[in-house]
């Protein structure tokens, strides 16, 4: 079992060497800080502390950034090795394909977790320092960091899936961009359109919340919103969250990485280097 750790160690080395880790962490810190300061205006009117507002803003940020950063590492994971001709060599060693994938996943997830924790942690600390924080808003911050890492895990796994299916790294990058667009932007637009067409009928009442929570990006948003009243008020999104049982969003977000990884594993199995 130490073989996947050897892969993990090497992948970490690569992420540090090609500055991905540095750049990703920097992006997280800058965006989180910018949103915290820009979003601090409504504190007084809503009657919540600054950290709560900051977490609400950062939730919206993370929906876009976590999948993007994850896909940016994942797309190259298999297709890149195929392009370089090094996958056949790697597979001639005793490490199984599952071990290789798990090794890469562990390294990539650790890197994402590092960037998320530093980014949101810094912004959270700044918000707490200037505008105060309570136990509830600290919990919300911890939840934001953990769920962001989970969301990243989903898109890492989906990125491996595309990387195994694509004919090369360039194609994998293109497919990843498409995947991001569908899950993060188009899915919600489609749902919005459907709700508008439905004019508050049965679809909006009973089907819509479930369709929404099936998307990991929306499940992430719902989980963070439903769990903290303050965040829900600050983000103005309570309706959908209240229509669902409490477990729906967590289950969706926890199950997606498993499904994604299993699909990637199957697709990787079929790759003939």
């Amino acid at each position, binding site marked *: 079992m*130490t*073989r996947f750790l*050897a*892969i993990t*160690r*090497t992948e970490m*080395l*690569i992420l540090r*060497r*090609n500055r991905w880790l540095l750049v990703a962490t920097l992006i997280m810190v800058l965006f989180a800080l910018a949103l915290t300061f820009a979003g601090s205006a409504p504190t007084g009117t809503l009657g919540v502390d600054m950290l709560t507002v900051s977490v609400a803003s950062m939730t919206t940020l993370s929906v876009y950034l976590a999948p993007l950063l994850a896909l940016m590492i994942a797309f190259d994971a298999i297709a890149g090795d195929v392009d*370089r*001709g*090094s996958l*056949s*060599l*790697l*597979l*001639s*060693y*005793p*490490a199984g394909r599952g071990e290789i994938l798990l090794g890469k996943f562990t390294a990539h997830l650790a890197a994402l977790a590092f960037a998320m924790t530093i980014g949101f942690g810094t912004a959270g600390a700044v918000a707490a320092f200037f505008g105060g924080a309570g136990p509830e808003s600290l919990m919300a911050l911890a939840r934001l960091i953990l769920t962001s890492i989970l969301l990243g895990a989903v898109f890492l796994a989906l990125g491996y899936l595309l990387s195994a299916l694509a004919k090369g790294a360039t194609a994998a990058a293109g497919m990843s961009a498409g995947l991001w667009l569908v899950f993060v932007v188009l899915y919600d637009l489609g749902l919005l359109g459907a709700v508008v067409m439905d004019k508050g009928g049965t679809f909006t009442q009973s089907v819509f919340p479930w369709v929404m929570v099936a998307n990991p990006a929306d499940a992430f948003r719902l989980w963070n919103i439903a769990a903290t009243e303050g965040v829900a008020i600050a983000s103005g999104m309570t309706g959908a969250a209240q229509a669902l049982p409490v477990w729906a969003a967590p289950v969706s977000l926890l199950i997606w990485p498993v499904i994604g990884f299993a699909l990637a594993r199957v697709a990787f199995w079929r790759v*003939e*280097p």
Partner: protein
Amino acid sequence: MTDKALSIDHVLKDRGKTRVLDDITLFLDPGQRVALLGHNGAGKSTLIKSILGLTPIHGGAIRIGDATPGSAQARRETAYLPEAVSFHPALTGREQLTLFAQLSGAKADVPGLLERVGLSDALDRRIGAYSKGMRQRLGLAQVLLGQPKVALLDEPTSGLDPISRQDLYAIIDELAGQGTAVLIASHALTEVEARTDRIAIMRKGRMVADDTLTNLSALAGLPIRLKVRASANPDVLAAELGGSRINGASVELLCTPEDKMEALRQIAGLGDAVADVEMTPPKLEDLYRHYAQEDLQ
């Protein structure tokens, strides 16, 4: 139990409607060096990938010792050098080789191995800055990890300068010396000639020859070329010996290996009329052309 290091027994493989491996049979003893020759698309790389278990076969059997391709045991006992290998450019040679050592589970002296292939100066440089020949050397270093039962080298000399090629064949000899069976897929015919125990030639997915160079020459019945330089009039010589004039002073004649001594005796009998004799046995290139190109016969 088998005493063969590598057994390829009546192997078939189809890709779509094309049969890419057609009834391939090849056995390698421990310590044997076998050259696998053939045109591009003859099926050399496909055969190697089948041995590695990276691509399925549709008939026959392959065994590495007693292990099936792709099994944990087979992968421990097989070393592989892909054609035009490349590695992640962000890693150093030392880091890349350390990864392979950890994956193989073998205790390895990584700096020692890199020195063995002439990369000790580039130990801690990024692979992105390596030349093609240096990447090939790094690939060769990982072949030396552990003590493989079988080493599969796909075009190992591509991108190497002549001196590196000498080093490469020294390393192959070293591998064979420790009991590793080495299969070398190659285009560099003249080098393979002197450096291998046996030659296998593939054409369009079929094995058309598998023997020692001497036996292959005898089997092909390729003529030996005798070039006789006349001291006076080459026309007289040509008439006498039945050959053809090739330039102002020489006559060339072709004879089978069996007739060689007879021809030499005849030439010697001509006495002063002959200034010099040059004898050229068939080269691997001629043999290769004979076996790999006798199309649709």
